[in-house]
């Protein structure tokens, strides 16, 4: 039973890293949204499993919030924004997919090398989850710097938050108040970013953030 619990937790956490790589690989808008919804689904499954094996019922609420807010509300809202902006074409990446993937593998290796030695006293499950959540966070950051499109940068940002939830549940859960306020701040961030997107688009006729750099005079 104990072995199976560990294996399932490993499966979900590893699956989350894999879905992060799928986010890096996908270069179509709607595909990106679907994979982001999958990302949130895997996180909520993982949290629910942690709630079950740690016998911590408040984690079920965390899982429910992750499922409702990030697997349903945010993808649907972003879907509407994409349709309104009319940008459901391919998005361009700054470097090629191959190099991004290699950089991602390097980041995963880095986070494993960093996390395993410094968590030597923690339990097996916590060590694994911490290593995986650090790699999810780093992959989200990589996605934010390797994409030009403002919407895919938002999705990278949201996937970082999923990694944080994974880390928090591995370390015996965070207080419910904190979790709820984080969920709401993510929602507020979505609204702010949505307004921001429409403003960029009004001003520059594109959501390519390089237009902003040109506007500031950083690029010729």
């Amino acid at each position, binding site marked *: 039973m104990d072995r199976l619990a560990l294996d399932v937790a490993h499966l979900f956490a590893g699956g989350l890293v894999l879905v992060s790589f799928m986010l890096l690989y996908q270069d179509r808008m709607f595909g990106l949204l679907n994979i982001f919804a999958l990302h949130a689904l895997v996180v909520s499954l993982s949290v629910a499993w942690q709630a079950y094996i740690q016998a911590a019922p408040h984690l079920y609420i965390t899982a429910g919030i992750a499922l409702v807010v990030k697997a349903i509300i945010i993808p649907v809202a972003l879907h509407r924004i994409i349709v309104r902006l009319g940008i459901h074409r391919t998005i361009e990446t700054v470097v090629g997919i191959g190099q991004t993937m290699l950089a*991602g*593998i390097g980041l995963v290796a880095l986070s494993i090398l960093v996390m*395993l030695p410094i968590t030597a006293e923690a339990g097996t499950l916590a060590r694994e989850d911490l*290593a995986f959540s650090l790699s999810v966070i780093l992959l989200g950051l990589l996605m934010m710097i390797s994409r030009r499109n403002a919407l895919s940068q938002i999705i990278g940002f949201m996937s970082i938050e999923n990694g944080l939830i994974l880390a928090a549940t591995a370390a015996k859960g965070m207080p419910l108040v904190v979790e709820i306020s984080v969920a709401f701040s993510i929602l507020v961030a979505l609204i702010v970013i949505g307004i921001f997107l429409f403003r960029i688009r009004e001003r520059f006729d594109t959501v390519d953030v390089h237009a902003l750099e040109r506007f500031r005079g950083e690029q010729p």
Partner: protein
Amino acid sequence: MAVILDALVQLAQLLLVLALAPLLTGYVRKVKAHLLRRRGPPLVQPYRDLLKLIRKEVVLAENASWVFRIAPYLIFATTLIAAALVPTFATGLVFSSAADLIAIVALLGSARFALALAGLDIGTSFGGIGSSREMMIASLAEPAMLMIVFTLSLLAGSTQLSSVSTFMQGQEVGLRVSLAMSLVALIMVALAENARIPVDNPATHLELTMIHEAMILEYSGRHLAVIEAAASLKLLLYLSLIACMFLPWGVATTGQGFAAYAIGLGTYLVKLAAAGFLLAVFETVTAKMRVFRVSDFLGAALMLGLLAALLLFVSQSA
């Protein structure tokens, strides 16, 4: 006595793969035709093609050297050995100790080397294109394959196929995300190596994007027959590899008697039929990729293999 039995099983295995390979190719074609609402050629058509090709005379290009003439036999021999080493219905083969995953990768690599040389030898532009593309695919597919091999051998503690297969049949495998990733990566590598649809189209000769067919364009007669037989053997090899490592149920082990061998054979045929059916469905619903996207496809396979090895490392050291 046991050695003789093992040798007999090994011989049976060799003959089985040789006899079954064209049937598998015909079966996949038949299923694909049915999915497109055509009747398709009969199941035995690949055997008929091979017979007809063997009877025909060989037409050699003027500037073909000895490389061009011996390459088909080299390809066929290495592929046949590799296919005979993969346990299909029983694991206790006499050459089990030689049936190493790395040895199989190396055998297939030498077959590919001979094929690429033959493509370059006659000096036509198509052959050159085909060879260079094949090498591009190989340079990504072989590292991916080796990463899969590393993952499996880290888990099973051995690169020998029979040990891997026995390990996967046992209880201590557990539910591992690494295994799922390496299975997906292996399927992607198998599609690329066998020139199946997202990478190359096996059904056409008249496209600028062809890879495998471009290299063998100048072959005729018995040379072509041998190359076609090798191609279907390779498809059978990859499907048996997937079956023996990831679906090892029913495979007979040493000294289990005749009934176990019969069960092993039956389950092997069922697995092959299922895998061939899935391959045909996949090829029907997928579009061929541009050649320049193949590197992304295989890069993803390589990435999955690397990730599988990394995640396994975490779970073993944690």
